[in-house]
């Protein structure tokens, strides 16, 4: 797609080439996606060679007709045993998969090493000798100009070679030059062509393009392997689904690589024009093959049209614009690789234990940074250039491209081969979750780019700001991809009611709140930097547009947070006491949603008034709103209960921050941030707007709590009658675990414990009558704790230090049970001593739990 039209170049000069380029990350993303496709080839090999053994192992370890379900404390022992049984074959699966990727990587390395010689032979390139002495001398001069210390070799082609091009590998580059240029070393055309080629070398284009091409040259024949293997193993039904996906991948990889190459050509032209002047390059471009009109040939071309190249030389800022194609490529490659990586990491993590692992997090850690860095750097560069050369380029086409690419990538992913339902999902409509999440993250990233571009030239250098914008986008994309992938998978398996109950535990881990805080601090730093009067001439005053100040952003967040806190108070007054424990927990979670809606309102207000920059500032305002709402919520609890129970503050803040971030991201995409910035500093308007939106959203969240926090159904598991002293005999014996196995089991225990913590917080939080709270403790909380203790006590660890660490968990659970017994007694009998004893025991319990939590990673 052609870049959008931009205004004529005005304002002070800014060297676009000095700004880090996002195309590099596009090449890396492309290469990573192809390596992931290599994983799939390895898995296909596994299925062909070891498929029968795998099925047999599954039947032997899990028993025939074993159902796939959610791991619970009750199912833990059986699953651990089955997982230990499956470990060897799962490890083999991983080895095959890695083998596929390693084969692709190794083949690519061979291609990279051999390519220069093959290319030279195929084109008949030769050392020109003395005939090109003048040309070689001029090339050396140009190299010195641009700081290339080791000039590339000059090779001459046969008479049929009519174009100059670069080849080689890092440190050993060469430029193939046609005879027609060699004989005219003093012409402007020679200089333009050589400077263009040197720009390719200096920007590492040769290495990057050969990296992408060599991976593809190796992958392409390997993709044919499953075509042979499927029929051999009798799996013919899988073949059509595989074939069309492989074809789509082949086409998109080719298009993506060529699109990236075309971008690099524009940059090389601009680099040449920087030294020779634009007129010389424009004149040289008359020698370029002319392409006519949009055609398939043009889409597949490695060079842009002559008109586009001339336009780029005239307006270098055009090369920095992020296009719809850029968005589509990032979306497609990310979504293409995600399901395959998920399958791979399931085997990696589940291989030794079979438990529910954070495989989505692992996939997101691989892909999120690649997508985030590509778009983060791209949007920041675009924002920088917009301040000097052009009008703001629209972001909407990029988002549309990204969404379309992400949808197509999921549907075309090799991860869906052999699975029913589009995208490998039982509910294909859920592909919208990941596509929407990526689009939202991109919208927010565009705002982050603006905020960090504002900071440049004041107290922040360009490179520092580029790094910061990229880092923020990286974290944002990894986080969003992780959560979206998990939500999509859980929704597909369990539906919304179950997922809504996981929001307080698995989907909002403490790490997410730390991420929210880190992003807020980064945004605050950028806005703080932008406060200092500008010292650089990089930004044209005429193109400077209003941006939300730090004070305005904080005030907006605070306004939204206070409004949400008011909603929580009013809601509590309106509803009165909770009827039962289920409603208590539901209200407790409902308050998190209200706080999160405050974050959303703050972002919406800033985006409506300040456009894209408002979105970026929303990362700070949203966090502030969530914190203020959480403080209001805690204040209400303290006012009613007289004190804040231990752990309540941290728990509430962490959950509000985490959920606030998750709600902030989609808001950035939903709110149309195309409004013209208001030139005055509308702090009051912002605060009022944010507060009104927060009231509306909070009231909506309160009214829709039955949807957002679906009431917990009664536990189907039998509740053990003994309140203390766990009975290990009720659990099948588990063989002693290795340290590695124990670490995974500990993660599951932690998740279960975190779920119970939600119940504890809800009981501590709500100001229900004493009889209700006693019933909640006795009927629900203590049985849950008891079950967990029973399972934990059944676990044996072979290693002595690990066993010692595990004892702290057992101790913590026993003390917790005792503490709640005392609290229940104190509440029932209005016994102050029992209440005090219970609170003291909870403090001791927290210490024991902390020792266990911190001790496990150290094993």
């Amino acid at each position, binding site marked *: 797609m052609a870049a959008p039209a931009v205004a004529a170049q005005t304002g002070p000069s800014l060297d676009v080439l000095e700004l880090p380029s996002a195309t590099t990350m596009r090449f890396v993303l492309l290469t990573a996606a192809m390596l992931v496709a290599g994983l799939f080839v390895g898995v296909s090999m596994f299925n062909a060679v070891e498929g029968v053994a795998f099925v047999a192992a599954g039947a032997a370890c899990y028993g025939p007709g074993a159902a796939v379900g959610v791991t619970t404390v009750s199912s833990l022992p059986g699953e651990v045993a089955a997982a230990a049984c499956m470990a060897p074959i799962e490890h083999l699966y991983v080895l095959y998969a890695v083998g596929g990727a390693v084969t692709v990587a190794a083949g690519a390395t061979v291609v990279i090493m051999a390519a220069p010689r093959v290319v030279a032979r195929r084109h008949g390139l030769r050392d020109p000798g003395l005939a090109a002495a003048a040309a070689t001398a001029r090339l050396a001069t140009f190299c010195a100009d641009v700081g290339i210390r080791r000039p590339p070799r000059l090779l001459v082609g046969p008479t*049929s070679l009519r174009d100059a091009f*670069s080849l080689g590998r890092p440190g050993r580059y060469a430029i193939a030059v046609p005879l027609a240029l060699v004989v005219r070393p003093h012409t402007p055309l020679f200089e333009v062509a050589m400077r263009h080629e040197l720009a390719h070398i200096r920007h590492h284009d040769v290495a990057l393009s050969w990296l992408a091409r060599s991976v593809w040259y190796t992958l392409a024949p390997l993709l044919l392997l499953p075509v042979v293997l499927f029929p051999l193993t009798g799996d013919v039904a899988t073949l059509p689904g595989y074939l069309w996906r492989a074809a789509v991948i082949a086409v998109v990889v080719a298009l993506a690589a060529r699109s990236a190459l075309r971008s690099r050509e524009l940059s090389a032209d601009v680099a040449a024009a920087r030294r020779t002047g634009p007129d010389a390059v424009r004149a040289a471009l008359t020698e370029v093959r002319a392409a006519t009109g949009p055609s398939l040939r043009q889409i597949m071309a*490695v060079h842009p049209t002559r008109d586009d190249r001339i336009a780029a030389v005239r307006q270098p800022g055009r090369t920095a614009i992020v296009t719809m194609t850029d968005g589509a490529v990032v979306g497609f490659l990310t979504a293409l690789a995600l399901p395959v990586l998920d399958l791979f990491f399931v085997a990696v993590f589940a291989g030794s234990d079979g438990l529910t692992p954070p495989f989505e997090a692992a996939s997101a850690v691989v892909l999120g940074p690649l997508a985030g860095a590509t778009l983060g750097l791209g949007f920041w560069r675009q924002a920088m250039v917009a301040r000097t050369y052009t009008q703001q380029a629209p972001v909407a086409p990029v988002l549309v491209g990204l969404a379309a690419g992400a949808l197509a990538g999921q549907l075309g992913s090799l991860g869906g081969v052999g699975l029913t339902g589009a995208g490998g999902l039982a509910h294909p409509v859920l592909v919208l979750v990941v596509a929407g999440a990526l689009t939202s993250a991109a919208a927010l990233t565009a705002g982050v780019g603006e905020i960090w571009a504002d900071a440049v030239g004041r107290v922040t250098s360009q490179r520092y700001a580029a790094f910061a914008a990229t880092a923020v986008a990286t974290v944002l994309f990894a986080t969003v991809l992780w959560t979206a992938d998990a939500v999509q998978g859980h929704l597909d398996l369990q539906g919304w009611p179950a997922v809504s109950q996981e929001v307080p535990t698995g989907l909002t881990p403490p790490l997410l709140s730390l991420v929210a805080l880190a992003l807020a601090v980064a945004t605050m730093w950028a806005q703080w930097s932008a406060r200092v009067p500008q010292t650089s001439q990089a930004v044209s005053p005429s193109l400077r547009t209003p941006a939300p100040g730090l004070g305005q952003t904080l005030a907006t967040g605070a306004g939204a947070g206070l409004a949400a806190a008011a909603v929580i108070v009013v809601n509590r007054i309106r509803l009165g006491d909770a009827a039962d424990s289920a409603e208590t927990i539901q209200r407790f979670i409902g308050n998190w949603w209200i706080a999160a809606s405050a974050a959303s309102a703050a972002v919406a207000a800033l985006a409506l008034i300040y456009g894209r920059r408002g979105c970026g500032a929303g990362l700070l305002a949203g966090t502030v709103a969530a914190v203020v709402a959480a403080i209001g919520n805690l204040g209400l609890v303290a006012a009613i209960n007289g004190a804040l129970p231990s752990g309540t503050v941290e728990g509430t803040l962490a959950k509000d921050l985490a959920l606030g971030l998750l709600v902030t991201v989609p808001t950035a995409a939903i709110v149309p941030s195309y409004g013209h910035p208001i030139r005055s500093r509308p702090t009051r308007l912002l605060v009022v707007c944010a507060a009104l939106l927060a009231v509306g959203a909070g009231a909506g969240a309160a009214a829709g709590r039955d949807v957002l926090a679906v009431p917990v159904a009664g536990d189907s598991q039998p509740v053990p009658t003994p309140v203390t002293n766990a009975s290990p005999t009720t659990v099948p014996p588990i063989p002693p675990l290795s340290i590695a196995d124990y670490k995974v089991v500990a993660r599951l225990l932690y998740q279960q414990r975190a779920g119970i913590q939600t119940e504890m917080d809800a009981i501590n939080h709500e100001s229900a009558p004493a009889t209700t709270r006693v019933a909640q403790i006795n009927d629900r909380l203590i049985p849950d704790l008891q079950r967990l203790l029973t399972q934990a006590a059944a676990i044996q660890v072979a290693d002595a230090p690990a066993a010692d660490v595990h004892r702290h968990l057992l101790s913590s659970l026993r003390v917790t049970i005792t503490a709640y017994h005392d609290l229940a007694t104190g509440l029932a009998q209005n016994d102050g001593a029992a209440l005090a004893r219970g609170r003291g025991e909870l403090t001791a319990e927290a210490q024991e739990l902390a020792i266990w939590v911190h001790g496990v990673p150290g094993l």
Partner: protein
Amino acid sequence: VYPISLPQREWKAALVISKHGSDSDGLSMPTEPAERDLVMELAQAVVELVAPDELPVLAVIAEDYFADPAGTLHPRDRDHPLGFGMDLALMGPYALAVATPIVQFLMSLATDVAKDLTKDAAKPVVRDLARRMFHREAHPAGPDPISLTKPQAQWVHDNSYRNALALGLSNEQAQLLADAMVTSVNRGR
């Protein structure tokens, strides 16, 4: 002056001289090393006029051209990744291609001059006569050079021009090449 009747054929047909060699693309090619030398000499004279900076590499160009004339004149349209994207052609191959039928034409003229000689004895005479048409200063002691009549010179020009256009040169380049060809053939007149 030895007038001859001009062949009234289309320009494409002019390139294909049945009694001489031609490659698969219909380009007329010299059949003997001596004829190839003549073509090279005439092309050198032309290149000297239209693209003198190519003279140092004309031998290389000729080697490539005679090895693969069609591939040299019409290389595959390669869009090299990381290339500049240009389509920069040398004049040398075109001069060689256009000079070949002209040399063959000149040799046919010379053959008429030497028709009284036996076949073998005539060959060097014919070559020398043909050479002297465009390279006469190198052979001051030989027989009188052959000069082309105006219609013959016009034929050389028109043929060269049409062939150059057919090979893909622009009108301006074709005109330049044709003028240079006539100038070279009538050198010293």
